[in-house]
């Protein structure tokens, strides 16, 4: 009897789940992308200050486009095919100009998995970024299906088709300068639109959202890169994640956190702390307003602490 009841309950639960999932599918997954004008000809699609999830469809990233006199330039294609299709509609809602060029800042999935929707145009990336996408892209894509679910449907890795070796390019009435840097992933493209003074920093700069470290060559390198960005004549910084910044505060915040991280991990290693103990170190109160700090700190200990331990033996 008990088993029959349990089975009946189980069936009921399954049917409910099925019904719920039918309803959820019926309400279509929509990214609701609304471009915001942040500088002359320059539009931003700002992502949420969150981690990848089935609620946000992995829309946690900033993408942007610049309407030049000879076509639209896109900065990063976004986390999924569905996102990038919505991205193209968003572009079409503010200009009749065709998209001509996409620039991928680095090989992380939220920045290039929308490439399929731009298969008809130039997709530029640093040569090393292309190599890293070829090596790791499919693993990233699989993981994104796990984290974001149905939002990813139909998304596949599409390689960039133009290796970026130039350090500058003029497209229509805009002049772009390219900086090939390394701090976040080993191949990070920062793009300065010299015409408007807008710096698209990619994930070399996070603002009000904790930085991520899975492929960083090291904190020293990242700090060196930030010095290079800080030395540029810039009117507005567009970080890879978080709000735009006209005062350079994002770079200061990055520096302060990276310096704290380096100091904390060094000290922990020389005190002989185990990884588990390091993960429980509270982050400084000055970083309390930065989204996901403690979560990303734990990830960073996974990524970087073994190197600090090695140095302390």
């Amino acid at each position, binding site marked *: 009897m008990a*088993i029959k009841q349990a089975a009946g309950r189980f069936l009921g639960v*399954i049917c409910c789940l099925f019904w719920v999932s039918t309803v959820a599918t019926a309400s279509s997954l929509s990214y609701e992308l609304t471009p915001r004008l942040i500088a002359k000809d320059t539009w931003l699609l700002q992502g949420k200050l969150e981690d990848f999830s089935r609620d946000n469809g992995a829309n946690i990233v900033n993408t942007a486009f610049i309407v030049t006199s000879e076509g639209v330039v896109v900065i990063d294609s976004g986390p999924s095919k569905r996102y990038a299709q919505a991205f193209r509609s968003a572009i079409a809602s503010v200009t009749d100009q065709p998209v001509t060029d996409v620039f991928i800042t680095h090989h992380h999935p939220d920045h290039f998995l929308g490439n399929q929707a731009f298969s008809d145009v130039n997709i530029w990336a640093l040569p090393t970024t292309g190599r890293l996408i070829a090596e790791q892209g499919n693993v990233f894509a699989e993981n994104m299906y*796990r984290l974001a679910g149905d939002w990813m449907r139909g998304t596949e890795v599409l390689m960039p088709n133009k290796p970026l070796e130039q350090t500058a390019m003029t497209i229509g009435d805009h002049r772009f300068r390219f900086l090939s840097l390394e701090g976040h992933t080993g191949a990070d493209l920062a793009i300065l639109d010299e015409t408007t003074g807008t710096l698209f920093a990619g994930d070399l700069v996070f603002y009000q959202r904790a930085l991520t470290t899975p492929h960083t060559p090291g904190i020293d390198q990242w700090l060196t890169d930030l010095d290079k960005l800080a030395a540029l004549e810039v009117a507005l910084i567009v970080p890879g994640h978080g709000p735009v910044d006209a005062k350079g505060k994002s770079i200061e915040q990055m520096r302060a956190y990276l310096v704290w991280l380096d100091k904390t991990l060094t000290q922990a290693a020389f005190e002989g702390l*185990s990884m*588990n103990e390091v*993960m429980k170190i509270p982050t400084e109160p000055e970083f309390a307003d930065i989204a996901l700090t403690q979560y990303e700190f*734990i990830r960073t200990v996974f990524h970087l602490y073994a190197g600090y331990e090695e140095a302390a033996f």
Partner: protein
Amino acid sequence: MRTFPAILVLLCLCVPMAAWSQVNNELITQASHNDTERAEQADPLNSPVWHYLRARFLGESPYQFDDRVVVSVPPFAEDPTQVPLLVDVSAIDEPLLRLVVWADLNPIQHIYSVESADRHLPRIAIRFKVQQATPVRAAVLTESGKWLVGGQYLEAAGGGCTAPSMANASPYWESHLGEIESRSFERAMNSGRSSQRYKVKIIHPMDTGLVSGIPEFYIQQLEVRRPDQAAILSMELSQPVSENPVFTFDMSSASVTAQDRYKLWMRDNNGNVFEQAL
């Protein structure tokens, strides 16, 4: 209209699942009848294999879930090949005969077991490989013959046990196999007693044998020995211990004396022996 066949499929699935759950319930009932003295405690981590693994690692001895057996893992396995795992039983104030540590849903569940000559088990931190999200357990055998069990759930995307070791892609390990680095640190313990922390790293691929064409190759035994060769700590290690293992031991002052100069001794499943003064 389109939902109809889907419901049929679900109905078909439900019948065998109900039957399976009946078989499982009977097995569990039988297991608990075998030992009427043991109070059946529900597994706080609600693992499908708790009874199977309890019987395998603890036998039919009595056991009890106990918060003093502290298993510390991160909330998620960011890197499934190097998950830090700290086990601390220092809050238990009685002699302890043996500690067994395992991950319920790993293809090779056992991670390590340890015994100590003076029956004081040190706090031990290692890293291990995880194949999927799983409860991670530690069980410690008291002198009275009862196992005290602690655990923690580890979230993971997984794949750590079937990923080739880094050593497989680089010849570095061939010329550095068994190289050991070690360092000791003074630590203050919660109780106010001081302890000596030993941290050791050894170069070893620790291949699980679960990657096609790469046979298992891992350190099986580890001992901390006194100058007279007597082991004060003996560990049995299994394949899930991470590549290039880092071990951290906190030896309480009761087991460490100033004139002691300990030696670390290890042997892998190919018979290679590695030794180093601590």
